[in-house]
């Protein structure tokens, strides 16, 4: 068994993986009440609508929490690596899980700006990882 990879043809997720392969972060929104519906569910938890649409969003956010994995639990994925939750900047009620790459563990802090990195790992499959982003001017000059 090799590293578990998602089924990119899964009907509930296919647009997400197609977007990632094209370097875009696509999320599900409710067609009726306009709220994000993430992770994708068949029904909107706010207005009970079944209608949904996929939209590209700005692939930037902030680190909400993370763990540094040092004990191997996934075949073909040797530690150490960092997995984190990133709060999407324009949709702070949505978080994406991914590996936090090219950031020294000592530098990590909750709230730090992140930007998506689209990493092709197999034929047609691009995973969405995250790396440190430039601070915006407001933060650079507090």
């Amino acid at each position, binding site marked *: 068994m090799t590293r578990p990879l*998602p089924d990119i043809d899964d009907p509930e997720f296919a647009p997400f993986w197609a977007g990632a392969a094209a370097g875009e972060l696509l999320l599900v929104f409710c067609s009726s009440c306009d709220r994000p519906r993430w*992770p994708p569910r068949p029904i909107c938890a706010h207005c009970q609508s079944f209608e949904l649409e996929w939209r590209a969003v700005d692939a930037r956010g902030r680190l909400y929490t993370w763990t540094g994995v040092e004990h191997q639990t*996934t075949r073909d994925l040797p530690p150490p690596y960092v997995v984190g939750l990133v709060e999407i900047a324009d949709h702070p009620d949505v978080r994406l*899980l991914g*590996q936090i790459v090219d950031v020294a563990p000592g530098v990590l802090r909750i709230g730090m700006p992140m930007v998506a990195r689209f990493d092709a790992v197999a034929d047609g499959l691009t995973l969405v990882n995250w790396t440190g982003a430039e601070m915006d001017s407001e933060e650079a000059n507090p």
Partner: protein
Amino acid sequence: MSGGAIVSGVGQTDYTRNSGRTEARLAFEAILDAIRDAAMDVDDVDGIITHPFSISPEEIVSGLRLPRLNFNCAVHMGGAGAVASLQHAVQAIESGVASNVLIVRARNGASGGRINERPSQQPAQHFRDQLERPYGWNTPAQRYSMICRRYQHTFGLTREQLGAVAVSASRHAQLNPAAQNLGHPLTMETYLSGRTIADPYTRFDCCLETDGACAIVVTGADRHRSRPVGVRIRAVGEGRPESPDDLTNRPDLLKIGLAPAAALAWERAGLGPGDMNAVMVYDCFTFEVIHQLEAAGFVAEGKGGPFCAEGHIDLGGRLPVNTHGGLLAEGHLSGLNHVIEAVRQLRGEAGDRQVPSPRHIAVTGWGDLGDGALAVLDTVRAG
């Protein structure tokens, strides 16, 4: 008091790293032990509550050739299911549907393969497959360490405070002849040298993996004659966090199902945390003890770390926690061992680790992605 239900029998196997027996065999050993303890016949069992992913009621009926089974269910709350099962048992008995309900947990949790290799039992597996496993996030330690990190960020939490939970559990286990870690005491020095598993969790923040089984029998309080003191299930509450099928997009990772569960249980019991003489907390990891002590109201939010480090959770302290050693040091029996320990304490059968004359003991359950349950047990005299 004549109403309600009592835990009439408790039973268990040995807790080891390699049982050499099947889970079904372990289950039947614990079941017979519990039925003997209840001074009943096998045929008296007419209700069974199982774990959704372990031995089935059909297998138990077949193995014991039970003449009737009037009630069965499986509770989908992961590790919180053992405590939540008490509520189902009480309801089955109070409604007259069943008279003697068996609750069983059996697992080859050590020899049956590492946790990341076993089929996952959590809800919404397609979220796990699509959004989590591909990134190497697939074990409870990796998931819950992210909750611990948020807590550290919000309230502060030291390694020594986490270590106090592990060391206390180990100290209690040294007084428990059944404990898997008997003879292997843990010092703070050893705790602090533990290798990292999923930061901030290290080796000794993580509970044991265990082969073994537990069983209890729940019976109407008015039918109980076998011993002078019966242990009554005074109240139970169960609860879930927001989005219980997904941790990643929960609005607040620190809000767990135990908070509403405990509020329900305290209200139903007419008692509060301050009335408890001890508490058995579902201790899959050290921080989960601190988190649950706060969520259930035993200590104010943000104060659980110092509370543990100051020794209040030790035997002889203000609130003894997990006097059997818990999942961290007695064994991982999905929290049914916590119920059994509360029963033994209330009966006065806990030997060297006995809490002096306890009247009320609470038991918590934690499971899946933050589900919670709390039971309040007390004593009733046979009438």
